[in-house]
């Protein structure tokens, strides 16, 4: 049998890296697979192309995959996510005037202290009749949920005390410059673009909000996954190899160059390398700040689709869409993440494979060896900044306890 082809949709963001590198470094080829890519500029279009068969799989916001399955905003279509493309990798960038009031430009401040200072400014702005306005990339995005989680815990009600609107990533810098927004939560390289243009200051990494927050997934229509199961398992193995290559510091420059190319991110290589190396320049002219795990794409079985992660996203959908908790929806949302597929793809490869499919999220505060089917997995800190933990068996209690 010859090489099989899969077409993958993506948005030009650094965390689209694994499928791209799987193709570019020949890991896909080793599996007898060839990948073609379809680049788009809005999540709506990435999703439409996936649903209408222009692509076989897509780089997708994890909450959007769940929202699509639950039929939020359009007729339900079942999506499967057998592979997490990465954890975190986003940041909060504030306009320069606001950053100078609440942050220490050039440093990442403690989330609580930053939030407390921001609360003061948000209240001032609100009483002056113009609430602070934040941009996120999509209503159903990890960006939106992590920003809201942080704000709410700091006593800033996201829908009452500030305003959160959707801004396309390429326009975040313009919107900050024009004063259309006061801050944004967006992926790379767009925070760095704001810093480079000196229209914003990076003040917080989403990894500071949730150290191991799930971000993009590989999204596939369920019937397509069933039909092309073998190809997708090959793709998963190829992306695991690409991940190992990606996190090796020796390959930094090479990978930045590939990802920055016109057909992929079409970005400044010098900005891309900052995200990949976890060394962001936070304010124009400042030296790079090393924040380990800013992006987290490979170790500690980072690509394993823990169903507890999907359940957490569902909890936030209930919280911010003001839905009633529904056990059936919770189960449906959790089932979007498909550890069974990940397992069958990586068994016999010797790759790290956890024993469980679900865990209490945010419960690991020191290096912890966890049960593994194969390989050896030591999880490091995965806490939320407020030290709450999320037990997927008790979503209602969790929601009741949140501010």
């Amino acid at each position, binding site marked *: 049998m010859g090489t099989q082809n899969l077409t993958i949709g993506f948005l030009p963001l650094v965390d689209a890296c694994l499928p791209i590198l799987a193709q570019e470094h020949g890991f896909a080829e080793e599996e007898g697979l060839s990948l073609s890519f379809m680049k788009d500029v809005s999540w709506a279009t990435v999703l439409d192309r996936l649903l*209408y068969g222009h692509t076989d799989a897509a780089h997708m916001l994890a909450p959007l995959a769940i929202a699509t399955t639950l039929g939020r905003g359009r007729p339900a279509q079942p999506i499967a996510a057998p592979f997490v493309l990465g954890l975190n990798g986003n940041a909060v960038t504030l306009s320069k005037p606001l950053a100078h009031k609440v942050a220490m430009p050039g440093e990442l401040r403690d989330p609580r202290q930053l939030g407390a200072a921001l609360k003061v400014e948000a209240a001032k702005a609100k009483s002056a009749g113009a609430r602070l306005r934040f941009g996120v990339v999509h209503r159903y995005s990890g960006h939106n949920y992590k920003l809201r989680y942080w704000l709410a815990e700091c006593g800033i009600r996201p829908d009452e005390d500030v305003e959160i609107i*959707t801004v396309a990533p390429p326009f975040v810098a313009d919107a900050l410059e024009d004063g259309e927004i006061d801050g944004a939560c967006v992926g790379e390289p767009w925070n760095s673009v704001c810093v480079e243009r000196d229209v914003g200051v990076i003040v917080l990494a989403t990894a500071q909000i949730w150290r191991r927050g799930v971000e993009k997934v590989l999204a596939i229509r369920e019937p397509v996954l069933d039909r092309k199961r073998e190809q997708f398992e090959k793709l998963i193995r190829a992306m695991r190899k690409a991940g190992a290559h990606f996190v090796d510091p020796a390959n930094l420059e090479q990978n930045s160059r590939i990802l920055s190319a016109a057909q992929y991110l079409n970005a400044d290589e010098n900005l891309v390398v900052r995200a990949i190396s976890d060394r962001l320049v936070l304010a124009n002219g400042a030296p790079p700040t090393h924040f380990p795990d800013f992006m987290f794409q490979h170790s500690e079985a980072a690509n394993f689709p823990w169903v507890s992660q999907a359940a957490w996203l569902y909890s936030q959908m209930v919280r911010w869409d003001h839905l009633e908790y529904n056990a059936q929806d919770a189960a449906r949302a959790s089932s979007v993440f498909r550890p069974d597929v990940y397992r069958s793809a990586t068994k016999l490869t010797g790759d790290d494979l956890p024993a469980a499919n679900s865990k209490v999220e945010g419960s690991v505060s020191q290096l912890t060896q966890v049960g593994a089917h194969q390989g050896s997995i030591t999880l490091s800190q995965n806490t939320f900044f407020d030290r709450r933990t999320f037990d997927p068996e008790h979503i209602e209690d969790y929601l009741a306890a949140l501010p």
Partner: protein
Amino acid sequence: MKIAIIDESPARASIIEEGLAGLDQPDIHILTRRNGLLAQLEVIGPDIVLMDLGNPSRDVLEEYFAVSRALARPIAMFVDESDDEAITASIDAGVSAYVVDGLSKKRIKPLLDLAVKRFNAFARLESDLKEAKGKLAEREAIDRAKRILMDSKKLTEPEAYGELRRKAMSSNKRVAEIADAVVTAYEMMGD
């Protein structure tokens, strides 16, 4: 029926507008700028919004349709699941159509069909143009390669072309590709 066409390419927008002009009493509004997009839409209060799939403001627009109370009636891309065939055709053509709730299918269908036809026509126009430009560039490369061979190997023009053609056939490539290779090699070797 109020129709808003959101397109950053004024050329395409006017081609679509022209296509829809044949409808019964169309009230067409064209929006080509990103700034103030939502405010303009609010003023227009459209029954149908057409937007190309390549527009980066799609997520912003969908969010607006999802939460805004400004428009009198909710608007969505998928009013009715039975529209699936029409929607597939529109996605294939590269256009998304958002329709207010309650607008009858009888009125949507012909409009969407026209929009799809116009989008496809524009795409063909673009690819023709691209092809023409490509052809022009190819011809230039072939001319340069012929000149290089004529100068360096003291060949006549037909002989130079014959050389390119022979090489192309023996290596299973197009003449333009061989010409490109000759030009590149020549540039790398210097004068």
